[in-house]
């Protein structure tokens, strides 16, 4: 699943660590999310979307062909 987290982080001038601290996860989790190596829970997706004040669908691009 592709994400636009990096794009929004750059827009808000936020580091991975700052975002990780705001949503209560490891920095590594944010790294894996941005690389598409990890699919977040709904709760985490919601928290991240709330930080950037966007909808979950705007942040996470779901492809039906994803495993």
């Amino acid at each position, binding site marked *: 699943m592709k994400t636009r987290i990096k794009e929004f982080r750059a827009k808000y001038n936020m580091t991975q660590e700052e975002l990780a601290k705001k949503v209560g996860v*490891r920095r590594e989790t944010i790294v894996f999310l941005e690389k598409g*190596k*990890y699919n977040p829970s709904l709760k985490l997706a919601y928290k991240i979307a709330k930080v950037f004040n966007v909808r979950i669908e705007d942040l996470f691009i779901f492809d039906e062909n*994803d495993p």
Partner: protein
Amino acid sequence: MKMRKDVVTRFFISAFMIITGTALWILKLYALGGGIILAGVVLFLSNFYYAKKPETEILYDEMMRRIDEKAGYHAFWITIIILTILFWICKYSSYKNVRFTDVYSIVLFTGLYAWIILRFYYSKKGILE
């Protein structure tokens, strides 16, 4: 120097383990005592490494929980397979007089190391579900 609460807790736990291990060693339970002392020392030393890390590097979050669960699930089945293989070896080979105490360490360490290796593998590869 202000330390995180979990660092202080870990120091106390490692000290307790070393003391307990020493007591067991004095009671002539050398294997158990030695194992607990070693684990306490490793925990004590690793604490110095983790003390410098910010929480965002070591927090036990949802991703780590899922990695643990996935690694545990696969390690469980690897352990079952090893047990099954050992059972059939004992049943049909010349090793009919093998006792449980002879093979439990194989099963124990296979399961333990399978979990540790798989945990490391999934933390590098990531998990997609």
